[in-house]
């Protein structure tokens, strides 16, 4: 069972060196314990471009698809037996990256 753990940034900006180090250690642990699938950090939504090619012609729009103070700053995709395991890992993820996280199951 895979879960997406989204990291939510509400204005704190880039990770500090301490946070980077803690995230690195947490990632190592995920790999060692078999929970690791993939993870990545994302740039702020400022340089995002939204593309809509449902019509005749692709329309490119500057900016994110939704304007909000909170945005997706990164994510983990983890392998976990059930929600309790996923929640325990996500809680540690929140601690080490010092941000709120959201857990959602893959279908």
């Amino acid at each position: 069972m895979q879960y997406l753990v989204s990291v939510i940034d509400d204005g704190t900006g880039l990770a500090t060196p301490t946070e980077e180090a803690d995230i690195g250690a947490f990632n190592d642990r995920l790999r060692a314990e078999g929970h690791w699938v993939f993870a990545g950090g994302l740039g702020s939504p400022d340089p995002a471009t939204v593309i809509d090619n449902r019509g005749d012609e692709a329309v490119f729009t500057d900016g994110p698809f939704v304007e909000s103070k909170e945005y997706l700053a990164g994510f983990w995709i983890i392998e976990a037996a059930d929600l309790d395991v996923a929640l325990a890992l996500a809680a540690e993820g929140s601690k080490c990256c010092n941000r709120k996280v959201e857990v959602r199951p893959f279908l």
Partner: protein
Amino acid sequence: MNPVEVADAITRVHHEEWARVVASLTRRFGDLDLAEEAAAEAFATAVERWPADGVPPNPGAWLTTTATRKAIDRIRRENKRDAKQREAQVLYADDPPQPLGAVDDERLRLIFTCCHPSLSMEARVALTLRLVGGLTVPEIAHAFLVQESTMGQRITRAKAKIKVARIPYRVPSTEDLPARVAGVLAVLFLVFNEGYLASGPDTDPVRRDLTAEAIRLTRMIRTLLPEDGEVAGLLALMLLTEARRTARVSATGELVTLGEQDRGAWDAAMVAEGHRLVRERLATGVAPGRYQILAAINAVHTSARDARDTDWSQVLALYDQLVRLDPSPIIALNRAVAVAELDGPEVALAAVDRLEETLAGYHAFHATRADLLRRLGRSRQARAAYDRGIELAGNTAETAYLTRRRDQLA
């Protein structure tokens, strides 16, 4: 057995066995919906057959077997269940009934699944009443004053989250257990309080069905976790509160305060059981939690033969202990009632007035304040406070009581 006896037996068996049947089927098929539907079908079959065939010697096993067959029939009919379930069907089709101990453990798993912290509190209450208590969706909707369709959606949504997000069907690990039990107790206390102080203009002031269900489920938890002090404390608290139920509302539907209740009308057996539990916890010497202290306060109240004999200094000492654990304004408000008895209404009023900022929207704040102002002879202010209390109170018996007190003011 005559039809009435059979009907009584079915009601009793429903209470005793519903959760066990649902739990057992959930383990086998890993699907709450299927378990619940099959359990309901099995009970419907019992209602049809038992009046003619008689109640079987082991109704729980009969129901589990019948429900299992119904579930397998359903899987065959639908034939679109996943491979895991087809496998379960093959594996367990002729499985003998589980020994009682293991099944009880399954009921506990069911309770912890329904009370998972990732579900909203409303969903936890609804699921617990539905899957563990066996209450129908209309009954739960009625108790919490929401539309049947709203409650139905709430339950469906919660069940879908359990399935899709894979909320585990198990008792939490030892390290998580205390925190998770606290959540279960909070759900049961909420159910009990809604029954004891039912809200809404068209609702009975006391919903005996809900208080009884909360007590029954807490007893179940106590059987499964006999060493947990807070479980014992909550059970004692509920029993000592429920014991006063009939004395608490007058023939005309008005609230009767503790001091004015006919103590002879209290349920002596419940009081005795509550006291026994409180003493049992005291004897362990382990520091009590919130529910145990609340139970002890109720034990002091129910020990006095007459309201005038109440040991208020003991009550206040317990509230002081409670404030250290839970410094909430509601606890501070209740503590002020004991202060009024010991140090007079003026001292108590000063303490209550300090809570105005946080409790201005809470009916009991105004009711308490009104009573203190009345005792101090400040009628005009008392009247205003009663008015505000009446406006905010959702319980019909309480509204009637406050209205009479207001109208009696000089």
